[in-house]
């Protein structure tokens, strides 16, 4: 249940000269609602969801909403990030398409041709488990170590592509965080299809990311050594990739940052962190989106905050969600999962009914 609490005003700051014009989509954690707000923070449209969203959501060009729903009684329902059902709703929240796989989790990416890539948990073969490093020894729950597969399904529900981490990922490079159990190896919480058709994947538990050559399944590069339980990978202009680096389980001050990396040099070419460093810290979730005017939209999930920053790292739009809810782990909070900005000319918005 969401309660709207009294906040002075949810929109804390805006600079109409620099903001990327459009609507922002977000969903409070575990709620069955998704909101589309304008730049003043007014709700212009909302969807009622049959299931809460597990992570990212997307508005399609026809105005439908696509997201991964969290099934409540599946075999993986007590795993963090569990999904289980891809759901498409029309503008009026009527379900128009769905695809079920109880082992899907976190993230999906909708391809231009309408097919959908998503991550799912598969059991790692016993012989592979022994060569996977890191984590706390002997903590595979029921002796199982789950690892990731990337699946592509078409609109008819046929699986047309499959990639398995244990067949391709270098076990010397993808090592489980020393503080975590060995119940999962990688946890692909974010996937993104590049312009050239390759797939970017962020692996949360191994503090790593990779680019996969789709046809061969080959891993073209691994990005390691910088991340700490990161989220939200995407390709940005110029062929770089960008991530929300949460900063959980580091030695020093916990802080989050957005990093943009050039895969040709593996160097960080742009980084956003707050000047008062520990104040921007989301140990959970988190998202980032590069906008058409070069700004970056940041979903500071843990703090219920969406921020837009310029390339010069100036905050020019800031919204704090006034929607509070209760969670068994995260208490009474206004956590939001993911945020996306869409311009008014996006075809999805043509001839639609709005709340005002």
């Amino acid at each position, binding site marked *: 249940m969401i309660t709207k609490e009294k906040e002075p005003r949810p929109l804390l700051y805006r600079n109409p000269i620099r903001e990327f014009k459009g609507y922002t989509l977000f969903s409070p954690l575990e709620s069955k609602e998704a909101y589309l707000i304008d730049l003043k923070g007014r709700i212009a449209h909302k969807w009622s969801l049959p299931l809460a969203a597990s992570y990212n959501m997307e508005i399609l060009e026809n105005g439908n909403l696509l997201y991964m729903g969290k099934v409540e009684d599946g075999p993986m329902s007590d795993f963090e990030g569990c999904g289980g059902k891809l759901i498409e709703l029309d503008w009026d929240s009527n379900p128009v398409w769905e695809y079920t796989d109880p082992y899907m989790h976190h993230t999906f990416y909708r391809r231009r041709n309408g097919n959908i890539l998503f991550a799912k948990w598969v059991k790692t073969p016993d012989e592979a488990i022994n060569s996977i490093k890191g984590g706390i020894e002997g903590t595979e729950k029921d002796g199982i170590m789950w690892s990731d597969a990337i699946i592509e399904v078409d609109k008819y529900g046929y699986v047309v592509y499959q990639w398995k981490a244990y067949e391709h990922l270098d076990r010397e490079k993808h090592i489980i965080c*020393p503080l975590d159990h060995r119940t999962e190896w990688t946890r692909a919480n974010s996937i993104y299809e590049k312009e050239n058709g390759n797939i970017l994947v962020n692996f949360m538990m191994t503090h790593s990311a990779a680019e996969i050559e789709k046809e061969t399944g080959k891993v073209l590069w691994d990005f390691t050594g910088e991340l700490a339980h990161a989220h939200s990978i995407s390709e940005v202009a110029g062929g770089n990739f960008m991530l929300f680096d949460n900063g959980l389980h580091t030695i020093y001050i916990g802080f989050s940052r957005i990093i943009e990396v050039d895969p040709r040099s593996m160097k960080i070419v742009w980084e956003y*962190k707050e*000047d008062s460093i520990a104040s921007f810290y989301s*140990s959970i979730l988190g998202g980032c989106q590069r906008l058409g005017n070069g700004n970056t939209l940041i979903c500071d999930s843990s703090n219920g*905050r969406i921020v837009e920053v310029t390339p010069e790292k100036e905050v020019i739009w800031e919204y704090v969600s006034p929607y509070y809810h209760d969670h068994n782990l995260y208490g009474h909070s206004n956590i939001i999962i993911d945020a996306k900005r869409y311009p008014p000319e996006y075809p999805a918005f043509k001839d639609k009914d709005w709340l005002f």
Partner: protein
Amino acid sequence: MSGTALTRKFGVTKYDKKKALNGYTLLAPLWNKFAWLIDMEGNIVHKWTFNKRPGDFTELLPNGNLLYPERFPTPKVMFLGGCGCDLLEVNWDNKVVWKHIDGEQHHIVRRLRNGNTVYPVVKEIPHNLNSKVKGGIPGSEENGQSIFGDNLREVNPDGEIVWEWVGHERLDLDVFSICPMEPRADWVHTNSIVEMPDGDLLICCRNIDSLIIIDKKTGDVKWHWGKGHIKHAHMVSYVGDGNVMCYDNGPHRENILVDYSRVVIVNIETKKIVWEYVDEAPQNHFSLINCGAQKLPNGNIFITESTKGRIIEVTPEKEIVWEYYNPFYNTTGLETQPGWNSWVHRAYRYPVDYSGFEGKEFNPVDYREYNKIYGSGAF
């Protein structure tokens, strides 16, 4: 709530006059050369100025003097935050009344009831023990070969060492292992010492995640608790009724993928947690370093959330009755602690009738040029 929204909060943001302990708060913003006493409205009523940056500790003694270590520019062990070397006691007017130099001192300085002073000293352990020290990041010994533990050193007012407890001779290496995410160079990392009613010493050891009671007469480890419960804690204290309290910072919790801090009170005899303070949204209260928890005479708990510059007073029912955001920002110049920050190591609240205030006058008017900038109504 944190992030840019948080950094717009300054001064007193909550004050329940009936429930909060009326008194003055000692505030020493980290890495700055001063400490303030502020009143309940956030006005500065007294100021001390230091010649060098203090280490991670400043306390107002019952005699009204301020006790703190003054940092050397290059500490003995570079990786150990809180390393300070000159121990100073200054009076109300900033005059040094006692000084003791010890290049190995780090973190806390504790004045004992007998007038002596005890503090941790960083000590390299014999290399033949290295392989017996468990945990930590493999291969992260300093220069590939050094592991540092702690001794506790007691000096009399003349600076003579009268007691020394040697950590590596007393701590069972099978029990006191290092957190998997910490460097092996930093084995024990004692950051807090208090004197128990019977004269034993209660210490808090950050990297081995343990609160330990040491029998002063024999040097034996009499009691310990923490592993599996607390992570990288600070400011242990004895709160009466056979209970001890600490601020459980909480980073690096095993298999927990969210960071949150809490204050816990644990019973010595049963080793059970009898009281706990967590924010209603646990992840909204977190500080990886420093922090404090102080039990006040009215039963409330005074908590410092260091890296947010946030200080709160909570009732046993966990209601926040006073909240303050340190308005003073500065930069540390340290790569591991970047940015412009309002961090506070730990703040103390002293009631208006505290013995240290006897004969002292408080007049915010004396600091009105500061209070227009930092005090009540400035933000």
